């Protein structure tokens, strides 16, 4: 007796929508990715031991970058760049602009080039004390040997 043969059914998955999904994901990540701040790229942050991972900046934070291009030292306060000689005016201007918007700066996040002399850093710290910004965060990279 001949047994009826089962028909082999080929299951075909329609993959036409797959590229759309992948491209959508790709565009999503491309749009939402935040690249490294350009200000940091100009600095060579010092390497030190691991204490705390950097916390996220909030509205009450002021970001200060100290570095040098060739022999010119610069300071950047919340994306406003100037020569280091104008650090007082720039800091005061930024703090006052924030105050006029109702934002009171409580903390300064300092991104400083490892080769900067401490006299520059101390001058900025002194000005922060004058402006009553007493919380300071020094940002550094992890020492690879530690």
């Amino acid at each position: 007796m001949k047994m009826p043969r089962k028909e082999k059914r080929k299951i075909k998955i329609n993959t036409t929508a797959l590229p759309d999904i992948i491209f959508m994901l790709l565009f999503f990540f491309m749009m939402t990715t935040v690249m490294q701040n350009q200000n940091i790229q100009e600095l060579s942050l010092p390497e030190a031991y691991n204490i705390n991972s950097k916390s996220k900046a909030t509205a009450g934070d002021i970001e200060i970058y100290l570095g040098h291009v060739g022999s010119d030292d610069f300071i950047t306060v919340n994306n406003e760049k100037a020569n280091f000689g104008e650090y007082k005016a720039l800091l005061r201007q930024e703090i006052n602009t924030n105050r006029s918007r109702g934002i009171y700066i409580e903390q300064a996040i300092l991104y400083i080039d490892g080769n900067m002399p401490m006299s520059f850093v101390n001058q900025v710290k002194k000005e922060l004390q004058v402006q009553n910004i007493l919380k300071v965060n020094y940002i550094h990279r992890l020492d690879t040997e530690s």
Partner: protein
Amino acid sequence: MRKQAKGHAQNNSSIIADCINTLALPTTLSFFFYILFIKFSMKRRRISHDTDTGMFADISFLLLIFFMVVTTFNKAYEVQMSLPPLSKSKSSGKLNKQRVLNIFLNDRGQVLVEDQLYDNDFAYSLVAEIERISSHAKPRIVKINMHPNTDYRNYIMLLTRLKQDKELVMGNLAEEMFNKEFNTLHIKQKRLIAKKTKYSVIENEIATL
């Protein structure tokens, strides 16, 4: 004459026949190729209309996975410090030497901890010194004296070293006092140890280091 005329006519017809023969072959051939070309190009054009997009997903997946695997995020770390209010920043009175840890940083990257000079490899430990000042009552002070041209990298290295060694001292104290690791202690015990190891940092700029 007739014969001559006949010969001329024969010659003419043979020339015409030759001409036809010589012209016909290229024309038919070119026509044939023309037809072939049209047919072929039509076919090709018809094929090129349908682009196979099947591998698009594979390529984009490959790219996506490659970038996901290769991407490394540049992680940053922070050292938190609290500055004193400007009115309190000037120290007053003499400090007991036993409660003070003196550290000097010069502009050549050398570190002087009490009387011991270290080169810029920072392979030093401040545990013993922190333990020494922690055994005394408050105020305990770590005094960082630095040359104005001291590199910021040396300063930040010292700060992180201080914090790291303080954590070691706290761990040792937890073992001594409660026979436990610091992380497993009750919050009140942690506070007690933190109080015992607390110190203030005074920074001083000295031009003649």
